[in-house]
């Protein structure tokens, strides 16, 4: 098993290096921030001063080398706009985004699996059909529009929930999070539901497909022939089998949730990494863009690794094949 992990680690490191190179080349070589920070009618001296101050006059490879060296030391440059270390800006906002992503995934899993399993078990019932119709809706509704409608209905018309922002922070298991306070929960509910919608539909469809594929299988018939109660057949035998693809997909989608939080954060004014990156792109704040990309790439690489490990735990055929091979 450790051979497996080491191999994956090396692979991940390689991906990181390649990505950093791509990102660097893309941003620094192709974008042209000089125009942003220098007014059109500035004179040459002004130009040179700004260029020197921002370090834009060095040759490309020297810039990259400096960049790599600094990155290893945790220094990814200072934001052009905020004039603060880019890395720190991002890390400061990460907890908020992670909180949101976590809540969304939780909703998707806790609601999605039971609903999907039921829809797969009784596909022709009214409930089963409604769940499927609902999942198509959840899949198709553009997230940002749903967010707007949620605010419209629950904040403006009904006034039940606050429309924007993050709630008060409390302490849960030693972590500072807004999920620990009622105010925090009230604030996170709409954005989390909004973000979860897409994944919820995905989980429902996966669970349902899993049920439909597994129920006619021989091992189910055999389990019934042994006289096992239906509950055990479904919640032990079938459940473990359908869990495998769900875990895999969810794991990979976690990264997507974090990335997609960009939209939700924009609408609900949630103080996370997402809003930062959008503004940075519009303003060509390169250090921040680069820092964001590097951090998110690292996160995905780690997530993929964790998913692979989880998968091998859940499916004994994978785990044992590795040991033998």
């Amino acid at each position, binding site marked *: 098993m450790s051979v497996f992990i080491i191999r994956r680690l090396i692979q991940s490191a390689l991906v990181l290096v390649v990505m950093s190179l791509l990102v660097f080349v893309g941003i620094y070589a192709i974008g042209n921030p000089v125009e942003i920070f220098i007014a059109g009618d500035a004179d040459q001296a002004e130009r040179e001063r700004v260029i020197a101050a921002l370090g834009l006059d060095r040759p490309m490879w020297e810039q990259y080398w400096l960049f790599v060296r600094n990155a290893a030391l945790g220094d990814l440059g200072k934001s052009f706009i905020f004039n603060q270390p880019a890395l720190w800006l991002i890390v400061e906002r990460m907890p908020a985004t992670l909180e949101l992503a976590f809540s969304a995934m939780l909703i998707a899993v806790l609601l999605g699996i039971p609903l999907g399993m039921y829809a797969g078990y009784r596909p022709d019932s009214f409930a089963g059909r409604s769940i499927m119709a609902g999942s198509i809706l959840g899949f198709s509704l553009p997230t940002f529009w749903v967010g707007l409608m949620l605010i419209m209905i629950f904040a403006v018309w009904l006034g039940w929930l606050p429309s924007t922002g993050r709630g008060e922070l409390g302490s849960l298991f030693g972590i500072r999070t807004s999920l620990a306070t009622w105010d925090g929960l009230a604030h996170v509910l709409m954005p989390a539901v909004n973000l979860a919608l897409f994944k919820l539909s995905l989980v429902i469809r996966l669970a349902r497909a899993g049920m439909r594929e597994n129920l006619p299988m021989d091992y189910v018939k*055999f389990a019934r022939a042994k006289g096992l*109660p239906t509950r055990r057949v479904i919640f032990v035998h079938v459940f473990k089998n359908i869990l495998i693809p769900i875990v895999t997909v969810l794991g990979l989608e976690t990264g997507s949730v974090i990335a997609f939080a960009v939209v939700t954060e924009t609408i609900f004014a949630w103080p996370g990494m997402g809003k930062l990156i959008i503004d940075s792109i519009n303003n060509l704040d390169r250090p921040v863009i680069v820092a964001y990309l590097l951090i998110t790439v690292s996160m995905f690489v780690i997530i993929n690794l964790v998913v692979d490990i989880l998968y091998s735990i859940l499916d004994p*055929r994978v785990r044992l094949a590795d040991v033998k091979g």
Partner: protein
Amino acid sequence: MPESEPTLLVDDLRTWFFTKAGIVKAVDGVSFSVDAGKVLGLVGESGSGKTVTGFSILGLVDPPGRIAGGRIVFKGRELIGLDEDEMRKLRGSRIAMIFQDPMMTLNPVLRIETQMIEAVKAHARVSDDDARRRAIDALGQVGIPSPEERLKAYPHQFSGGMRQRVAIAIAYLNKPDLIVADEPTTALDVTIQGQILFEAQKLCRLTGTALIWITHDLSVVASLADQVCVMYAGKIVEQGGVDDVLDRPAHPYTHGLIGSVPSRNARGRPLSQIPGMTPSPLNLPSGCSFRERCPRADRDCLEPPAMAEIGPGRLVRCVHPLAGPTS
């Protein structure tokens, strides 16, 4: 000596599938009985309805299929129409089933131990340890070496023959009165097949369990069964004691089946084949279903033949049987 009632009595069983394309009469009027400690061979090509017969007995026929008529009497108790809960209590404890391909019938993500212990605990209030002990015993009985360690394994870590032994062990766990084995050795190679057959027969004699062995392979039946029923297109076309049927087949189909089995005695001679193909269930010929492939068919065969008794315990569904009444 008083007549003891048979373990299983099947009387005019009809299991039909109500599909969009029409009604498929997979089992259409099947009758037989099995006594305790005896083996009944149910022989037929794929599509003859033998597997569906097996499932009907266990009550595992899924929609669009349904038992449309007849009786299935298990130790004096009518099974058709039985409450699902009652049926579940019988399955796995009094009536067990062995399936064809153990790779697909054992759940690949659960350990053998889990799958055996749950079979015990579903029917008796015993502790995990007691259940485990029973499982170890059962594995030992079917000839699996070091059963305690093997319990912890997953199905894919066993060879095909071993897996099937595990399936047999599971079937015997609760000491059932009847076991329905559906082509359990078809997926295995010949040497293993022999071993499994031997184990099955031994257990059967030992425990007094009635055994229904469903297969398409006549040679299996020859070595194992006491009685044999030959099925074709949903009906039994011949039945009787195994030696009698195989030495003196009465139905042309049985004769064709026997003739088409490759055997050492017939080396060098061309393999005979039954001409034509098994008819589609939606398109059965009128009258005798076999008439389009039968060398002895004539106008009399346009009427569906009834089961006729041509000797004690010897029945054939044909108006032109091969042998006359046996002495």
